[in-house]
């Protein structure tokens, strides 16, 4: 029975070098590389009783713990490259289990390392910055029931046209950004409770951008922000991130 479990942040090449000072998940030791043949897992030794399934479930419901773990996970992965990020809270019982995972997943992980090398993930969210243009329409009292209905219908048409225009703009924005990226996809828009903004999120795009093209990508974001400001759209870029969203299907 081993005295530590292994929190596994991601997978790198066996010869990779780590920065000297890396944080660790709560209770964990400094991250180290655990190599098997050409690959190495980036791991922290963690106390098994804190990271076995029931304890982990409890921790994950504790906001302070979750925040510490999430920030450490991100800071470790953000400080190294190239790396294939694993899902947060992937924990192994011992080193043999980690090596077995590396052996079993070697072809897919090695291919992913090559594909992600020299690239970072960027997020671009698009928000509707303008208020509801149809709301301005009913300042005067309707003259009759029929007038009221006409106004209601006109307001609906204006709103629909505005929605369609913004939707088309988001499609165009995503296509332009995708042209400047090695890979691109859209994620579900975050709800207003999560974004902290009243205006709806219209696009939640993620882009895998070659480091060499990063400046050009950000210039494109700025250009699109300028182009679409008049349409009431606001672009919000975040990054660079480890390629969290570009590893789907990597593991068999």
């Amino acid at each position: 029975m081993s005295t530590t479990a292994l929190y596994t942040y991601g997978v790198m090449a066996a010869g990779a070098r780590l920065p000297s000072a890396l944080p660790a998940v709560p209770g964990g030791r400094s991250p180290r590389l655990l190599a098997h043949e050409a690959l190495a897992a980036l791991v922290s030794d963690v106390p098994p009783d804190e990271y076995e399934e029931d304890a982990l479930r409890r921790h994950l419901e504790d906001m302070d713990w979750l925040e510490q773990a999430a920030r450490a996970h991100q800071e470790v992965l953000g400080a190294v490259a190239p790396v294939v990020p694993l899902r947060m809270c992937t924990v192994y019982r011992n080193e043999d289990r980690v090596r077995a995972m590396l052996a079993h997943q070697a072809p897919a992980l090695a291919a992913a390392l090559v594909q992600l090398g020299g690239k970072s993930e960027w997020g671009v969210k698009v928000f509707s910055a303008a208020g509801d243009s149809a709301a301005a329409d009913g300042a005067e009292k309707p003259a009759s029931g029929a007038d009221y209905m006409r106004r209601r219908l006109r307001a609906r048409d204006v709103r629909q046209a505005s929605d369609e225009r913004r939707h088309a703009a988001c499609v165009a924005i995503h296509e332009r950004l995708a042209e400047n990226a090695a890979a691109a996809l859209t994620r579900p828009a975050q709800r207003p409770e999560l974004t902290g903004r009243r205006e709806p999120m219209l696009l939640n795009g993620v882009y895998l951008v070659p480091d060499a093209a990063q400046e050009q990508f950000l210039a494109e974001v700025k250009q699109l922000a300028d182009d679409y400001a008049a349409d009431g759209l606001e672009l919000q870029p975040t990054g660079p991130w480890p390629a969290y969203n570009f590893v789907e299907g990597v593991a068999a």
Partner: protein
Amino acid sequence: MSVIAPAPQHDLALVDLLDRLLQGGVVIQGAVVLAAAEIDLVRLDLRILIASIDKAAGL
């Protein structure tokens, strides 16, 4: 570049980070004790997070 918003405040940046971490990354089945993917964390924890933000905002 006035149309680009300033960096989100602390809690909102955390929400964005969690949204990435809890849904991204390779999920490896098998020898794993637990991958966060195996439970419906996203709903569970973002609900807690919303509650904590509401509390912090005095709502």
